[in-house]
């Protein structure tokens, strides 16, 4: 696990994680003050939930993907990857260790966001407590399941095509999966188009993993069947991304 330790220490020394940690910890408490919740105290909790998960999404998509791209690029360009190759560490192992180091920073951020929802924005009615815990754990699971392979993808793409390509491609895929497919769906409901329909059908529907609305409308936890389907769906996408990442990742720029 030498590359893991090295990457973990590198990320730690770059200090950008501290900004994300600060944002995830502070923004959920500060942002509601400038929303309409300042006039209506009953809206503080929904505003806090939205801010907590919104900040987490932004931090992961901006800092997480950027860090992954930078690590992937520097691993192949600086000769680090080549050095570890000579010590017998395979490309897949290198990708896994770099990914794991970065993932170790994302998981606490996600846990903090879920914790803020659980402890500072829980519904007052005690009968809703169990639902609240289940829903937050479901959200946490889906979030990590969606973003874990995307971090690896950003890392792998940038090791081959450069940091900008790795970051932009991953960012675009995520935004498209979160919001683009929803708009495409509305357009297709108005006017059918078989080509677009096929594209839509085989697009990653990350919007299912965004449970923020269920939290702030207190719609209740996902039913067992739907949650199992979602886990299956995102695990399948994880497998695809893992495959693509393995294919794309390379340890040196001229290999």
């Amino acid at each position: 696990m030498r590359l893991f330790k090295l990457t973990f220490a590198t990320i730690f020394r770059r200090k950008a994680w501290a900004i994300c940690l600060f944002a995830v910890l502070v923004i959920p408490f500060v942002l509601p003050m400038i929303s309409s919740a300042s006039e209506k105290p009953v809206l503080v909790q929904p505003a806090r939930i939205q801010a907590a998960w919104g900040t987490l999404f932004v931090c992961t998509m901006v800092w997480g993907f950027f860090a992954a791209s930078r690590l992937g690029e520097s691993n192949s360009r600086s000769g680090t990857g080549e050095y570890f190759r000579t010590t017998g560490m395979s490309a897949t192992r290198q990708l896994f260790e770099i990914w794991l180091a970065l993932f170790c920073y994302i998981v606490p951020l996600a846990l903090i966001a879920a914790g803020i929802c659980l402890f500072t924005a829980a519904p007052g009615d005690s009968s809703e407590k169990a639902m609240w815990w289940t829903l937050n754990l479901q959200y946490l699971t889906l979030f990590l399941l969606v973003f874990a392979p995307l971090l690896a993808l950003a890392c792998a793409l940038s090791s081959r095509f450069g940091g900008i390509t790795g970051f932009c491609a991953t960012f675009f895929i995520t935004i498209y999966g979160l919001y683009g497919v929803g708009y495409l769906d509305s357009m297709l409901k108005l006017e059918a188009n078989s080509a677009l329909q096929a594209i839509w059908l085989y697009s990653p529907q990350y919007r299912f993993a965004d449970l923020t609305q269920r939290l702030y409308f207190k719609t209740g936890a996902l039913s067992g069947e739907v949650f199992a389907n979602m886990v299956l769906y995102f695990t399948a996408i994880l497998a695809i991304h893992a495959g693509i990442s393995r294919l794309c990742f390379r340890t040196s720029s001229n290999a």
Partner: protein
Amino acid sequence: MKTNPNIISIALIGVGVAGFAFASRPLVKNKDIDVPLNVLGINRSPYGEVFAMAMQGPIDTFFHATESKAHSCDVPATCQHQTTEPKQEPASGKHTAPDDRLRHFIDGMGAGLVERTNPTAASEAHKFFLRRGIEDKLRFAYNLDPGHYGNYNAYHFFLTEPELGTRPELTPTAAKLAEETITYCLSRRDDPRLALTAAAAAGNVIELMFSDRHVNPGNPRFSTGQMRSLLDVSDQAIALFSGICQEWTEQGLWENLSALRLMEIEERSRFVYKIRESQGKAIALLEITPFSYGVENPADAWRTTRDLKTDPFGYGVVPGRKSPKPDTGNAENLSRKSQGSSQSGRNTASLSE
């Protein structure tokens, strides 16, 4: 001679700051170059129209959204409204093609995502939050394409329906919305659909004036003359629609539209014609019996000829373009007044002033 590079940098910054301070003041104060916020120029652009369409369900879905069953017209025998056929959901074992199965799977997750499993009813605060969200979306879609029939009507409906709206200044907002829509739509001659939207906006304002007679039977705020002037706007829009349709036929532009769009235009034009005709009759009745507000209220007679369930009761409105203003003054005056009144009494406050 060797110059200190810092001095050059500091001089550059100093000159820049001075120039910036000197030049920015007239620019900021110049009203002519003050443009409304419009990211990438998307609002009112052809791309905006496409995005707005994506946010907009079919007209029937909206107009009949409040009904629990299929919509009922006054003349069901001749009703030609397009009703959405319920999709025949295949039995679970029949999804044989991989595409079908995947679609069913994705649809299932989509349904599960919005399914309410919490047995506790949503609180008032949450309902308010939801309504605010809807209103923001409707306004966003309207800004993208103010000439879109559905965008305008959906937003108008929302603003004038007291059970739904969340903003205190409903009355002037709806009036300003109608006025803006009419001005925008009548200034555009590239698409007949915009003229239909203008006619619908004029019809909505007349409808609100009828509602005012319901609320203030003894002292209506709007005269039949004001209604007539709006009816003229409606006629003007309908004439513009016919004119542009003629041009499109001559230039063969209809072929660019899909069958669904054509059907939509046909349906909307039929609807606008019907509304215009009914409102004309109702105003004529009001002119004959201006103080009859019982069961035989002409406005009621007009109501019964409609198949819309979008009756916005309780809001007077400032007439739109080309119409005399009511005594209370323009929309800004009304806005100030209604802001002064308490939020809880907003329904009656703006009307009683």
